[in-house]
């Protein structure tokens, strides 16, 4: 057992740092040439970096003053891109991956719909095969970065005669296709939109946009959500990103606010939770280095990190009292503004209700842990085994 991270004198680090010295202000395309925008992917896309090497490369990217690639093009580099390595065709890889890795083509995830997010398998968007095309119709919502994306990873129903999970397929679509309309959703923070709704009206997509086989959509979706949740098992305030409880504690100590007896103990609790999440990150790194399957942190880390982030943001606000209720000015210092939009406790706090909504509500995650980790009986779903086309409100009512 060893909790030491690769140090400043690590030869692997020195090599990476030397490249940055020789290539000041690199573009993401240059980083992608080095295989560093998704360093854990196999060559030629990445460098097959193990978790420690990936840690080093990421640290050096930040040190060079750049935003981490997987925070710029998260859907491609973290959640979905790797599905192309396992399920895509060579033509799909050549078409989609270079632009994604260079962070020149941003991807979005067309999953949730107005009629259901937690019950994603009940989605209603259809893709109907017509010759060498599919015609897509439906309405997606809560789609991050859809307004910047050129590629959409779409889950749609290709076979309504099958039960709900079995009739789904996954596609990679051009977001500039005729019939795609993206509208921003202004969330409760009032800041620039994170989310969008996407209307798909008779969108014609080529048949070779299908990823994997027809009917494999649910399997691919689950793998991608799982990857996304592992990525969220980090100590940052919003979905693992942003400042951590260590930064919170530093700020409280620096401002002297830690001596508030009504705050002190709760701040310590949040600090300890943050350290636990840090440890789970380390365990995840270890499992990846050793090639052992993801442990508890794989399925349940987000269950811990989401409410932790909410408690952390709440302490930051409490430390400011009424002054914290004014928009934006942060009294609590965050000297290191390296976290993009979450480099601001105010935004993090008003955004934090989303922690326990996005990528599966907290309630759904608790079900996942109870059922898959603890082996408890599954929740009843009277619609799980009937053909999707026969599910009606009457079926649902009858099951009550």
């Amino acid at each position, binding site marked *: 057992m060893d909790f030491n991270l690769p140090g400043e004198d690590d030869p692997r680090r020195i090599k990476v740092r030397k490249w940055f010295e020789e290539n000041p202000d690199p573009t993401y395309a240059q980083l992608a040439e080095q295989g560093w925008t998704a360093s854990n992917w196999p060559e030629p896309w990445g460098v097959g970096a193990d978790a420690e090497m990936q840690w080093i490369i990421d640290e050096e990217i930040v040190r060079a003053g750049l935003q981490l690639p997987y925070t710029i093009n998260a859907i491609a580099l973290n959640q979905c891109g790797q599905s192309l390595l396992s399920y895509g065709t060579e033509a799909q890889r050549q078409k989609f991956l270079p632009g994604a890795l260079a962070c020149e083509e941003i991807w979005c995830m067309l999953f949730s719909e107005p009629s259901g997010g937690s019950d994603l398998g009940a989605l209603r968007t259809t893709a109907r095969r017509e010759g060498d095309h599919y015609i897509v119709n439906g309405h997606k919502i809560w789609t991050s970065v859809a307004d910047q994306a050129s590629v959409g990873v779409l889950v749609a129903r290709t076979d309504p005669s099958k039960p709900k999970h079995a009739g789904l397929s996954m596609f990679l679509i051009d977001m500039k296709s005729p019939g795609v309309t993206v509208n921003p959703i202004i969330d409760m923070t009032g800041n620039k939109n994170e989310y969008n709704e996407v209307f798909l009206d008779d969108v014609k997509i080529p048949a070779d946009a299908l990823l994997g086989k027809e009917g494999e959509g649910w399997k691919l979706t689950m793998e991608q959500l799982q990857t996304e949740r592992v990525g969220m098992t980090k100590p940052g305030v919003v979905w693992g990103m942003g400042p951590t409880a260590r930064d919170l504690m530093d700020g409280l100590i620096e401002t002297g606010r830690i001596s508030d007896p009504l705050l002190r103990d709760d701040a*310590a609790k949040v600090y300890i939770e943050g350290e636990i999440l840090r440890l789970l990150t380390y365990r995840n790194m270890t499992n990846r280095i050793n090639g052992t399957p993801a442990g508890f942190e794989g399925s349940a880390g987000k269950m811990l990190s989401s409410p932790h982030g909410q408690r952390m943001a709440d302490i930051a606000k409490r430390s400011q009292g009424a002054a914290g209720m004014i928009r934006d000015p942060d009294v609590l210092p965050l000297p290191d503004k390296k976290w993009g939009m979450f480099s601001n406790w105010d935004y993090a706090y008003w955004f934090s209700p989303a922690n326990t909504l996005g990528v599966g509500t907290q309630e759904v995650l608790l079900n996942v842990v109870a059922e898959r980790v603890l082996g408890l009986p599954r929740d009843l779903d009277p619609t799980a085994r009937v053909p999707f086309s026969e599910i009606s409100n009457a079926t649902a009512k009858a099951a009550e």
Partner: protein
Amino acid sequence: MNFSLSEDHEFLRDSAAKFVDEQVDLAPLLRPGADVSEAGYDRLWDKITELGWSAIMVPEAYGGLGMDYIDLVMIIGEIGRTLAPSPLFGTLAGAWAIEAAGSEAQKMEHLAKLAEGMKFALAVADENGSYSNMETDVVAKQASGGYELSGTKSFVVDAASADKLVVSALNNGQKEYFIVDAAADGLKIDILQWRDITRQVCKVEFDGVSAERLEASRDDVWPWVRDRLYLVLAAESAAGIRAVLNDAVAYAKERVAFGRPIGAYQAIKHQLANIAGAAEGANAMVQYAAWALSENDERASIAAAMAQSYGSEQYKEATHRNIQVFGAIGFTWEMKNHLYYKRARCNAELLGAPASQREQVVRLLERQAA
């Protein structure tokens, strides 16, 4: 970075598990009105000595096994998981105090006896359970050929089982450490009606008890020992959380209400999922603290205090949820649920409340920042 157990650690844990699963019998404690005298407290000691558990941490130079804190928590976890009654906690505490406060010769003499089955206890707290007891502590007076101790200690774990007691006492206003023989004249040991009947906790009165001064006594002996005792309690707690979770999950799969196992209902399954998160967190923190103490890492004290506060608080919560899932049957003396509930509750007070360890964490962080 390598956050995984070695094969040696797993082997040690598995063999400890086999031993306690075969040997620990809580049945006598499940008869209504039972107390710690029926726990068979010393029954496993010969075997524990043979396995070397009490000397596992003692350097080889003093006749111990010279293993590290990660090895220790493998064993303590199994002891904690099964609530195995034995005077191991007290013996570890006394041995650590001797390691910290004894001269080389004293360490050679006393620690070597662990291999022969010697049992220790460590008496620090006063009658109010305070460890910062400069006003109320036992007083040491120089006497012919050594010292004599007078005063009262309480919350001394395993004192009635011990062969020797290590005692903090004031010598000319300085807090120092002494060894007394448990059978010495003037020493009176009463077993308290401690609610956790799997653990022996005692009050000890000293009336001019002849004592040997530990020659290397210094101010930070107690904090040094306390960090290690935090780890022991935290390891018990982490394993205990897992144990009560497993029991509750098994019961929730069996017990049927309204036509389904109760574990099918979200009101139950969500509680159990949350305990699973706490079990994982507590275990990760224990292993980290064990590593940090083994490496003498600069964050070792913070890690130990974090492990104890998180572990004991989550253990309290988990044992309460466990009783709730079992329903009224879990509230009866004949079920073992209450033994875990009481162990958890007592672990969260024995060395100070979880909030006091969090205060230590914040103070250490404040000192680092200064």
